[in-house]
């Protein structure tokens, strides 16, 4: 069957098997491997993406059900060279270790802060309670989300932050050191 949807702001269309799960569509048809798969039973939440702004477990939704809707994945958090405060918060507060649950956690947290800019610790814990992290013990995830709530402005991606494949941000200031003649003499 044919599906058309908006993914991270861009329109995509594909012919797919009707039974294909959204998580597999995103990972295998679109190559967006930041969304992970971790269980068979909708318990772990490593597959959480936003559909029309709502966090959804993409292993529990057919790609066909997303037809005509808007999907946001972890790859869509960074916009125009600016990383989302939630991404910065996870780095600031050591909210991740192996990184496998992180994309789902961040998308749930983004939606939480969107609707509740100043969540309490209890509200944060409840918001992420459908998702499992095996590494962090959650306290640093809670702190990371609190950090993002306290720093609502998006952060310029710095030279150090930028992954190599993304190249150097256009606005990065590079200090160019001219070659020094003294060291060139043989």
């Amino acid at each position: 069957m044919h599906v058309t949807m908006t993914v991270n702001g861009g329109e995509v269309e594909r012919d797919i098997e009707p039974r294909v799960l959204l998580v597999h569509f995103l990972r295998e048809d679109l190559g967006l491997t930041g969304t992970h798969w971790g269980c068979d039973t909708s318990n772990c939440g490593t597959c959480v993406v936003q559909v029309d702004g709502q966090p959804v477990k993409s292993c529990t939704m057919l790609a066909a059900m997303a037809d005509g809707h808007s999907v946001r994945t972890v790859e869509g958090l960074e916009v125009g060279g600016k990383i989302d405060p939630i991404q910065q918060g996870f780095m600031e507060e050591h909210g991740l270790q192996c990184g496998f649950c992180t994309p789902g956690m961040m998308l749930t947290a983004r939606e939480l802060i969107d609707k509740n800019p100043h969540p309490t610790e209890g509200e944060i814990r409840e918001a992420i309670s459908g998702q499992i992290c095996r590494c962090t013990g959650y306290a640093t995830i809670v702190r990371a989300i609190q950090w993002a709530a306290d720093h609502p402005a998006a952060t310029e991606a710095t030279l150090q932050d930028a992954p190599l494949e993304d190249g150097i941000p256009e606005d990065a200031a590079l200090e160019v050191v001219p070659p020094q003649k003294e060291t060139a003499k043989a």
Partner: protein
Amino acid sequence: MTIVDEPRTHAEHGSEHGRDHEHNPAAGDAERPIGFGRLQRKEDPRFVRGQGNYTDDVVLPGMLHGAILRAPVAHARIVSIDTSEALARPGVRAVITGKDLEPLKLAWIPTLSYDVQAVLATDKVRFQGQEVAFVIADDRYAARDALESINVEYDILPPVVDLRHALDADAPVIRDDLEGRTDNHINDWDCGDKAATEAVFAKADVVVKQEIVYPRVHPAPMETCGAVASFNPVSGELTLYETSQAPHAHRTIIAMVAGIPEHKIHIISPDIGGGFGNKVGIYPGYVLAIVGSIVTGHPVKWMEDRSENLMSTSFARDYIMTGEIAATKDGTLLGLRANVLADHGAFNGTAQPTKYPAGFFNLFPGSYTWEAVYGKVTSVYTNKAPGGVAYACSFRVTEASYFVERMIDRLAIELNMDPAELRLKNFIKPEQFPYDNKAGFDYDSGQYEFTMRHAMDLVGYDDLRKEQAEKRARGELMGIGISFFTEGVGAGPRKHMDILGLGMADGAELRIHPTGKAVVRISVQSQGQAHETTFAQIVSEEIGIPPEDIEVVHGDTDQTPFGLGTYGSRSTPVSGAAVALVTRKVRDKARLIAAAMLETRPEDLEWEKGRWFVKGDPSAGKTIQEIALAAHGTMELPEGVDGNLDAEVTYDPPNLTYPYGAYFCVTDIDRGTGKVVVRRFLAVDDCGTRINPMVIEGQVHGGLTDGVGMALMEIIEFDSDGNNLGGSFMDYLIPTAMEVPDWETGFTVTPSPHHPIGAKGIGESATVGSPAAIVNSVIDALRPLGVTAIDMPCTPARVWDAMQGHAAPPI
């Protein structure tokens, strides 16, 4: 020996506080810190962008997908397997059975404990979930569909489920594939002094006996196990992407098993979504992906699903431990006996050093002085999944620590003595180190009483006891549980420790490029432990280059030196030592070059972080960056010095390291439901020198959450037919953010005397130490009801049962 006494509690956390560069205030500047201290992780930028590269993210041209058909029953003879219908399905390229593997000599592979394990069952299935057939198809859906079309006829046999009956005379023999095998006995192992312990018990005022069950649990990393194999028939080269904590050991073992020359095998262990010991072993699926690639001529991906992970890959624990403790009536410990029955499942696949079939259960005497101890472990086969040492356990240290800490509390109850006071009375004293624990291990260093008292201050122990007394008077159930653990990690000295004959050493290579940037290549593999950050910090500390200028390469056998990998908290104790030593080697070489540059003698130079300078004339010096350029430049180098600033070492640890900690857990129990709530948990850890406090805190938090899981929720149970009752996350419960408190942590620092930087390892401390604190707290809460023991997991139902089995609660 330095003592750093800086409490870091939940009330004090925060990014301002956290930016301190602990132990290293003078080095570097605020923007480019050098060496140890809190530092954001170098791996985070890719992970927060979804740019991690996990095994299931690997896509190769022409790649096919594999799926495994698994046994529906625990014990049965295979009568026939019909694959014809599956082969006829669209998209199916091949179906492989055990019979197909026999001529390749791959139907069975060696386990890490000198047993063999079936890759695909040929004669019998021996546990529910065992591998029976492998389908290779164009996509993962087609492969799964085809599993339904394989027809297997089974002749069902009675299973051995209860390990207490595994050695009964009439128990079915599980391993009839092993010649001459007439029972389910694997081995017996003991340590300590049996006769001396008996003598001590004979003279003791008080003897207490207690059975303690550590149930079967599972590491369950968020990423399941999997592999992508690509065999090139022209070059004969195998490239294997896999979820491996030990890529070099896997390469050697695969070379031995599959007959592919080792230099033709390239193993890449990319980003790993959590390991916890689950990804140490070589699973049938990895072998099947390799065979599938050879058979089809295409790359083959195999990723297990969650049920396969929980039902067939390496479990942990499954120890029934009977303890006896002998003491004087004033609370002086005299003797300790442990008698253990261990369930190893259908194949003996435990991962541990060869000479230690019960892992490091030798640590069961714990942190105390005894006149004599004796421990014995008997291991048996059952019709359950194989494995045994996994889940952040430091090789059975978890079982040992849980055992002794439960026993100490049991004695405290018997003596009507405060459990903190009983521990303080019997700790090994600082001046007694190195300390022979009478069970075969020599502890390196510790200040147990100091750490314990620091933890008691931080948690407010006396106030907690007062609060408890008030609550008890009102009929409320509040518990305070203590655990004081000593781990032995960093396996290990080559002369004592090997896995399948491979000595447990690790290599490191360091290159300083001409511009002063560095690359360090290590043999261990991160599954989230931040090696790319902390190993760069070790190099930085030793040579003064900022961590951001140091690339850490790991997880790729073509790019890194040989070593045994990451498990048992061995990365920092072994590989971390290798990295420190290789950096010192480079620093020594830099001294020779600097001397030539400064036209002086090497012995006239003095080191400060980042540069060599002339003694008495600090202005005359050369930075490591200047020396690196000179090493690669045109300057005439001293005799015998090569034109580079590179080095390599292999580190053979002289001993294990012995991290320890004092843990306190406060629980409240609902009288109406038996539900346990962990209200507070304080962990005070001493892991020696601290490289990155932020990473250490994260490691501790994760382990504490493991502890809550095991103590309150997690268990892999079986019914009487051998059906696995914990085969999904619906049944195998893992703590979420709702079940754990905001952790409180503190630390003391007692460096390891033999480790180059004094570090001891921290990865598993909290998993080892926390379960006993939680269970002791539950028992303490239930004391008014006469409860003296309860086994994990302390589910509401189990706690409720314990509450009902005793006298009516006081009003």
